[in-house]
């Protein structure tokens, strides 16, 4: 097993892979990027402290543990997930990737994002900051935590959040 510290480049390439799987709607493969103890979270846009609030005490937009990460991927691939049928076109731009802490097994990573979503003739943007905890398990990088913090005060322009950020 690799003892090499998780590098910035490795983390960055991993985030780009995740973005690509999402834009290609390869959602079952996307869910496999997450560890068994993973969380995928999107804080409320106007939360008091979206970086440190807990989904156990504050309402979030999304707070999925692994079973619902898989559930979300499974759901969104169905034609009966009406909000995303036909699938939106999306483009995930992930930039300003910064490695905050890193060891051979765990890394904390911050990145900026802008996701464009087009449904029918309308395009909206979701922008903000990702906070990741990445882990190396059996030689492969996995997401243990992904929290998206939106630079929004509401979903007034976006209407809803049915894609995965």
């Amino acid at each position, binding site marked *: 097993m690799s003892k090499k510290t998780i590098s910035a480049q490795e983390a960055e390439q991993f985030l780009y892979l995740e973005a690509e799987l999402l834009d290609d709607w390869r959602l079952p493969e996307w869910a496999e990027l997450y560890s068994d103890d993973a969380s995928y979270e999107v804080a409320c846009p106007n939360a008091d402290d979206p970086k440190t609030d807990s989904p156990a005490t504050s309402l979030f937009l999304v707070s999925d543990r692994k079973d619902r990460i898989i559930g979300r991927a499974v*759901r969104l691939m169905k034609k009966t*997930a009406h909000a995303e049928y036909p699938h939106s076109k999306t483009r995930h731009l992930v930039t300003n990737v910064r490695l905050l802490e890193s060891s051979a097994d765990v890394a904390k990573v911050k990145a900026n994002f802008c996701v464009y979503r087009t449904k029918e003739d309308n395009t909206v943007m979701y922008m903000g900051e990702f906070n990741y905890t990445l882990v190396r398990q059996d030689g492969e990088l996995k997401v243990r935590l992904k929290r998206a913090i939106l630079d929004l005060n509401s979903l007034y322009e976006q209407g*809803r959040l049915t894609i995965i950020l």
Partner: protein
Amino acid sequence: MNDVSSPKRPHIDVDHEARRFRINRENYKSQEIFEREKELIFSRCWLYLGHASELPKKGDYVTRIVGGRQLIFAHGRSGELKAFFNSCTHRGATVCRERKGNKKSFTCCYHGWVFSNEGKLLSMNTDHGFPDDINADGNLNLRVVPRLEEYRGFYFVNYNPTAISLYDFLAGARDCIDAICDQSDSEMVILPGEHTYTIKANYKYLIENSSDGYHLLPVHATYFDYLNDRFKGTKDEGAVDKLVKGYYKMGQVRCLGNGHTILESMVPTGRPVASWIEPWGLEVKEEIDAIRDRLENKFGKERMEYISETQKNLIIFPNLVINDIQSITVRYIEPESHNFMRVTGWALGPAEESAKLKAIRLDNFVSFLGPAGFGSPDDIEMLEICQKGVEGSPIEWTELSKGMSESEDLLTRTGGPDDEVQFQAFWAQWDRVMRNLDKLEA
């Protein structure tokens, strides 16, 4: 204004004998009708403003848009909760631009007029030019909303000074609010965070959707698939199949007077108060059992079961939803035009709830509800395609006859959980108010 009591075309078409109830689609797609709704519905009905638990301390405030008006809901220095129009009495600017906070006073940033958190004009930021007694009668204080009343912590405003009381307005809905609030041994509170989003559809489509048993299985198949997966290998395995086969036999819809309605149904989602499901683990079962015991001691077995097990989709006419389902959501709907609404959803729970149950409550909430849940977004899609469909179609009437009776009073009857009698009640009341037959005045 035109004579509203006789619209060019009738708003609704009711034929008891033929058991037909139809809605003129202009009611969803006409901006002119929306303008009349602002005058007749949103200036005369009690509209939800906020919950007492949002303003626990003196000086706390939130700003809200209610029925098209910019309001400040504030906990004043005297300890009373008050509602003001958020508009400086000088030139009209909003005096508070934050969504919430704590302030002793509100200062207009245009010319520096200062108002206390009780609305009193404290300073005009000048010592000359104005008559000394210009505010002797208080006309330059922040304008207080004509009526502010509360029921069990839910505060409502009314822009008509001579409106009937909130108590009378709520009619049969009071007992449903009681059943929701009685979950708590102390008080119910709004939990931190809110979902604010928009839908490109007429607000009445969301009111209909929020208590529609008929749409549940076709629209929410993916949610029930998810529940089914969760229940595999637990005591609840098969509960979803049972629901699919028997939904229409379990529960009912009740019309509560004044256009308010409730859908009471049995859906195996688990409820933090107080229906346990196995995926939550045995450690919370004990706590939930204790809550059931407490409720039974206090209210008797039947009421305990109603509070604990029955899913409640409560519609308060014209634009508030309190759904006590897998979690409790308070959902306020603010129409902005005939085909666009702003929606705000909050989570409500007992103040004394344990950390574990509160986490389950919030998790259950986001599993289905809100603009990123597994349920609400599919509802939103339905409303938007309805709006698109009616706007692009010559069809004049929408069919809402399911469960229509031959004789009973539309405002107070009951029906099956997948009937449309709750919409018939809503629309019957809407028509009465829109035609000035019911002014909702004392």
